[in-house]
């Protein structure tokens, strides 16, 4: 286990390191930031001063080393738009909102998705199974941004049940969370169903039934707990979908999270900000994947020894 742990952590670090190089190089490709900072009226001396100040007169590898050193100290530069505030501070401000939204939508899709999946598998071929699977298929086919807009139109505009957008109260998180959970819900239903079907055909489930255990115990204690293992690996894939969803849904519902910050930065071409957000989100994403992998290895010993 220890060896596996070290190997995975090392891989994660390499990934983040490579991503930081890519982000840095792309940043240099985006052109000279000095005119952007100073505007058209700057004198030659000012330009030289700022160029030196930002370290842009040094060779690229040195610039990267400085970038990395600063990033490790939690300094990702300043936004070049608005009040030119620190990128890191702006990112930190946006974390709680994104976190709340992600957790709410995950919980929602697990609470709804798991029972549907289990039920579909147990009553295979029943009306509910077919309906559940069709729902999953539909959920997977509709783009999150569209679901968000349609929900907003029906629930907020037509029936005036919930606010259309904004952040702060419980009522405001419902719509974005529902729209975002659509992505993961379909996947959870499908995966729970197929993994339950796998498990239910297993020898030990047969044995449990022969022993005369009640169907409830067989399904929930023996089968269900084992069917959860493949679901863990799915969490990694889920995160990618969630990431795309977060950017889109936050943009639609004016939710002040990281996704919206990224989108705002792109639309104002605020490069340091984009760089910072992308680096931070990659970091979060890689860390989350690492945790999922380690959990998986912890639950299923076969992985560790591969």
């Amino acid at each position, binding site marked *: 286990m220890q060896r596996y742990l070290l190997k995975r952590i090392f*891989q*994660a670090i390499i*990934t983040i390191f*490579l*991503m930081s190089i890519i*982000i840095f190089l*792309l940043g240099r*490709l*985006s052109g000279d930031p000095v005119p952007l900072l100073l505007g058209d009226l700057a004198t030659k001396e000012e330009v030289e001063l700022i160029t030196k100040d930002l370290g842009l007169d040094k060779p690229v590898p040195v610039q990267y080393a400085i970038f990395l050193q600063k990033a490790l100290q939690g300094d990702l530069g300043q936004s070049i738009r608005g009040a030119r505030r620190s990128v890191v501070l702006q990112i930190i401000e946006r974390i709680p909102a994104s976190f709340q939204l992600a957790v709410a939508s995950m919980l929602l899709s697990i609470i709804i998705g798991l029972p549907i999946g289990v039920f579909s598998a147990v009553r295979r071929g029943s009306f509910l199974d077919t309906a559940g699977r069709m729902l999953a*298929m*539909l959920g*997977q*086919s*509709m*783009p*999150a*941004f*569209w679901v968000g*807009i*349609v929900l*907003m*139109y029906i629930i907020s*505009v037509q029936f005036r049940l919930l606010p259309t957008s904004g952040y702060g109260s419980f009522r405001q998180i419902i719509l974005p969370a529902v729209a975002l959970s659509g992505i993961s819900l379909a996947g959870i239903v499908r995966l729970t169903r*197929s993994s339950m*079907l*796998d498990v239910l*055909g297993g020898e030990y489930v047969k044995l449990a039934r022969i022993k005369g255990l009640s169907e409830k115990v067989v399904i929930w204690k023996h089968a269900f707990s084992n069917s959860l293992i493949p679901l863990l690996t799915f969490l990694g894939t889920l*995160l*990618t979908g969630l*990431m*795309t969803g977060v*950017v*889109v849904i936050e*943009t*639609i519902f004016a939710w002040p999270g990281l996704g919206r910050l*990224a*989108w705002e*930065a*792109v*639309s104002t*071409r605020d*490069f340091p900000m*984009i*760089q910072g957000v*992308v680096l931070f*989100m*990659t970091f979060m*994403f*890689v860390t989350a*994947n690492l945790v999922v992998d380690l959990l998986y290895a912890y639950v299923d010993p076969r992985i560790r020894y591969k």
Partner: protein
Amino acid sequence: MDDSLESAIPIKIRKTRLSPTVIIFSIVGLILILTAILAPWIAPHNPNVGELDNRLIPPVWQEGGNINFLLGTDTLGRDILSRIIYGARTTLSICALVVIIAGSLGTFLGIIAGYVGGWADIIIMRAVDLVFSLPAILLALLLSAIFGPSFQILVLIISFTLWAGYARMARAETLKVKEFDFIALAKIAGCSRASIMMRHILPNVISPIIILATLQVGTIVIVEASLSFLGVGIPPPTADWGSMVSEGRSFIVTAWWLCIIPGFAIALTVLTFNLLGDALNDRLNPLIHRR
């Protein structure tokens, strides 16, 4: 996905009758593809030019509808039906390009990793892991901020994030095929490594790759539409479903069709290819039926 797509050797095509759903969606799929190919001949209007006099006409079945504009017009007076038809062309050509680029690159690298092994395997699989840990959306935001949104960059970004799936699958399949006697015999007969990979391994790993490609069309459509919706995908005025939804968003109360119709087109396309992918998977993959 890996475990459901076990080795397809020998390919057993189940001789069952096609279900009505599959037949219906095959026809829908065919219509979608034909629409994309024949767009210039079947679209009633120019998708990118409209007359302001005709703006915001509702679909024909609503009050105030006009028979010349079956699905209504947008804020610039452009015909929605024509834009949907050309949108199919945009979306499906991106899908085709991505599947060709990502599919051939991924399969090629996967077979090399699986057959040659050693350092090639380690390097290729590390790259695969790296790609799997980069969310496409972030890369797209970054690149479009630098180069501005464009068709080519969009295709490259999506291909870049999807080739790894093919590589993983091709490698796994190659590892299985490698153990068969006909590979050993080919080696004894003096075939070169390249010819074994191309002529003996490739044909045997191709069917799960085709299933994956079909299933991925849905993903590509959604990613492409999401990026265009955010304004980092297909730049205007090109007709694109994602950007149509985005343009129609602020008019949802007064002109629902601007945003609902293209969204419906996206959902229908994704649903069609997902269903066909599943059906193909069921037919080409005997293992699943043991469940």
